[in-house]
């Protein structure tokens, strides 16, 4: 019998080698370069670059933005996916398309939209100024831009899964007397938890790493509105290569930690589930 999995041994071998080579060159190597460059001039230089007040402010700001954005997008993304997958209503297709919008629009344009809306000469600029509310070139602008760019991650992970799982279990739970919240908490959520976690982690990684949209609305005020990616760019443009790579290494490390957390959580639940 000859099937898709019955290729000769050398073909399989060659494909595996090719895959590993591509992964190494395009994914692993750059990551290693970041860490190597960060430490090229020693631990002290790297540490100084990270403990510099402006760098610390950038780190704090990045974590703060992520801490605001990720919970909001988790809740809104889950709600959107739930509504789309479990209910019939007119305009569902439009909403799915809208959810994808941030992925198809360049982040720079997303940032510009917020400037056009809330900037000094924007639609709401005069009103905001009159009420002494600052959105662009301040934390609210950074949060809005990041919210926009990272919105699809959670919803996109959940919608196909929830659609595939259908409504049967939810309907069964309702006939058994469960309230809406009980249905979500006891039936829907356990069924989507891995996809949800994966979406949240991707959302988090992007929220911390977002450059384009944030760059437009940030105003680049050092120590105030610079996030880590923006701080890295400034250092790099000022030829502080080691410093730039040190902060970049830290940012990469944050991403690696998220991935590790995901791996550990998954391994943990697999152990808890019963033998098949």
């Amino acid at each position, binding site marked *: 019998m000859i099937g898709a999995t019955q290729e000769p041994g050398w073909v399989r071998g060659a494909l595996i080698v090719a895959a590993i080579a591509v992964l190494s060159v395009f994914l692993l190597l750059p990551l290693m370069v970041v860490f190597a460059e960060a430490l090229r001039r020693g631990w002290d230089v790297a540490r100084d670059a990270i403990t510099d007040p402006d760098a610390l402010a950038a780190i704090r700001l990045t974590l703060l933005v992520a801490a605001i954005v990720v919970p909001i997008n988790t809740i809104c993304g889950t709600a959107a996916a739930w509504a789309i997958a479990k209910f019939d209503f007119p305009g569902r297709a439009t909403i799915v398309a809208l959810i994808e919008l941030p992925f198809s629009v360049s982040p720079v344009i997303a940032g510009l939209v917020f400037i056009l809306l809330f900037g000094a000469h924007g639609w709401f600029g005069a009103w905001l100024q009159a009420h002494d509310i600052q959105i662009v070139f301040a934390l609210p602008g950074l949060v809005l831009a990041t919210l926009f760019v990272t919105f699809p991650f959670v919803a996109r992970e959940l919608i196909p899964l929830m659609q595939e799982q259908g409504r*049967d*279990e939810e*309907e*069964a*739970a*309702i*006939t*058994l*007397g*469960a*309230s809406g919240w*009980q249905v979500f908490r*006891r*039936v829907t959520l*356990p*069924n989507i938890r891995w996809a949800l976690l994966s979406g949240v982690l991707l959302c988090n990684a992007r929220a911390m790493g977002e450059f384009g949209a944030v760059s437009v609305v940030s105003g680049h005020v050092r120590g105030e509105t610079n996030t880590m990616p923006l701080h890295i760019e400034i250092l790099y443009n000022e030829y502080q290569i080691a410093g730039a790579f040190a902060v970049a290494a830290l940012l990469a490390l944050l991403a690696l930690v998220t991935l590790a957390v995901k791996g550990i959580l998954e391994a943990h639940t697999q152990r808890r589930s*019963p033998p*098949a």
Partner: protein
Amino acid sequence: MSIEVRDLTRRFGPVTALDAVDLTVPTGSFVALLGPSGSGKTTLLRTIGGLEFPDTGTILIGGRDMSAVPARQRNIGFVFQHYALFRHMTVFENVAFGLRVRPRPHRPTGAEITRRVRELLALVRIPELERRYPDQISGGQRQRVALARALAIEPTVLLLDEPFGALDAKVREELRIWLRSLHDRLRLTTLFVTHDQAEAFALADRVAVMASGRIEAFGAPEDIRGARDNVLVTDFLAR
């Protein structure tokens, strides 16, 4: 308790799924809703269960109007065609679900829940499966779990949507006999949907034949077979 359906109509766009349906399922009886696919029988069952809403008409259960009663408060045992077991819960937890989600004042204690679940699993003859997950048991066993789960809430009536549809012939035959004997023991008013004539006639006290959203005939199996005056019924039964 009895189920009374009065003048129930439901349209989906241009399609009339239920066309002024009247049906009475007497207390303690075992009634089959027989019809080809698309005849509206599942819509009728789901409407009685509160999962679909009629455009007009009323449903009474035990004489009480269900119009304003949401599905979760109807206390109806519903067994879904594909069982709809909670895939992340053990068999035990599946059966316990309806008890665990009760409002606190009505919720049995942990020990009481354990006792009740074990009793039900014994009733459906799968006590050894309580720690398994739905994907670790056979189709026939899943059907029994679904039934035990529906019975756990001590429903006033039992609704079954194509209860044997997804099973192979041998298991199907076994389960049929068993379900009938269970009904004879519990005397719980039961309405089940099927497109299989043999099943309807073998199991039910009364058969309602549905076609195009209407009930074309209703009566004891022998009467339905005898009544060849209705063209639609004759058509369907001749298949």
